[in-house]
């Protein structure tokens, strides 16, 4: 596997400093050392066996929200700022 590919998965079991994630039906134990309070049902991004970020389950609404925020921001104040 390529070292840079991030894998997103759903937490199905949390125990101490590890969690088991489900990735399209395949499960794998990964480190949860970098994230606090992970619970079954959470979604995480995993790199090199370590969960690095809690995320939403899909990108379904992200793109439209980013574009909408950008259009609003451009209209209101075209200055330096993040859209979120």
């Amino acid at each position, binding site marked *: 596997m390529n070292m840079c590919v991030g894998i997103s998965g759903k937490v199905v079991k949390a125990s101490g400093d590890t969690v088991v994630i489900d990735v399209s039906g395949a499960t794998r134990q990964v480190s949860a050392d970098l994230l606090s309070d992970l619970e079954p049902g959470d979604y995480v991004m995993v790199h090199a*066996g370590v969960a*690095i970020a809690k995320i939403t389950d899909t990108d379904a609404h*992200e793109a439209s929200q980013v574009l909408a925020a950008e259009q609003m921001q451009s209209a209101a104040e075209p200055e330096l700022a993040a*859209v979120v």
Partner: protein
Amino acid sequence: MSDAQLSAKQIIQGYDGPRLRIMEVCGTHTHEIFRLGIRSLLPDSIELISGPGCPVCVTPVGFIDEAIMLALEHGVTICTFGDLIRVPGTEMSLAGARSQGAKVRTVYSPLDTLELAEQNPDEHFVFLAVGFETTVPAACLTVKKAKAAGLDNVSILCANKTMPNAYAALKGSADAFLYPGHVNAIAGNATCRDLAEKEGVSGVVCGFTADEILTALAVCIQLLQEGKPFFRNCYPRVVTDEGNKNAQALIAEVMEPCDSEWRGLGMIPGSGLTLNSAYDHFDARKRFQLPKVEGRSNPHCRCGDVLQGKIKPSDCKLFGTACNPQHPVGACMVSGEGACSAYYQYSR
């Protein structure tokens, strides 16, 4: 196609302004943009160029030589991400060294090294720690857990790098950067925002799905037309402004900045990470007293120019002939994230 994709696609395809150069810093972006056919949507006036965000590609030849020295002369077992195994060193790759008896194991995570060390107490395991902010925490966790467990047969050969000073070094290479989303997931957005506000370097944080890449490109194109430096986070479902504080604290506890050599970019001050004095014992260079190693790459290989966005892979005379995925001459053809590999796979 989603509404968002349609909207972003309209912005991209409808662009009719002056020539724009946008650098996808991350090798995964390069591959996904090819794989998803996004290049075919771009008008001629928008050029995507590949940057130095493939950690395997920017790791200097001398690092491979060091790893081979550890394996063949010191008898350690090398644990590595699979990407590194076929990267040419001065004389041979790790795959070549394995054929001469070197013990080289592919691991998914640096943490796998700990299990191997526990199961084989008479063997020493060295993890090859390459990668940017995204993978640095895994290497830090490995040595921290090794120390806590009293494991004496583990160390790392460190060539980890950080992106901020590389962005600054690349200033002027492109009109805007697509920043690697997972680097910012760890490091946060402050550096990229500062680059826009203080250095005039523009960019957007970009995710990895079709929607996310199209959105980031569309936002980039819109803002470039306004003519002011900008920063936007177009990957908010994963990247927060503050990043991962636990990861940042871990890195600060275990490592410290150092100057680092980047293939193609040369030595960039403060762009590397090395274990700090509290974790000296886990530094393979010190543990095995490695001499200074100066690697030599093939003089005809132009990976360095590719990594700076100066040329396209197809401009290198070795591309697709002497250098191909079966017989790679440069690292950019080996790695699954390398620009030459992407061009070979998708655009010949």
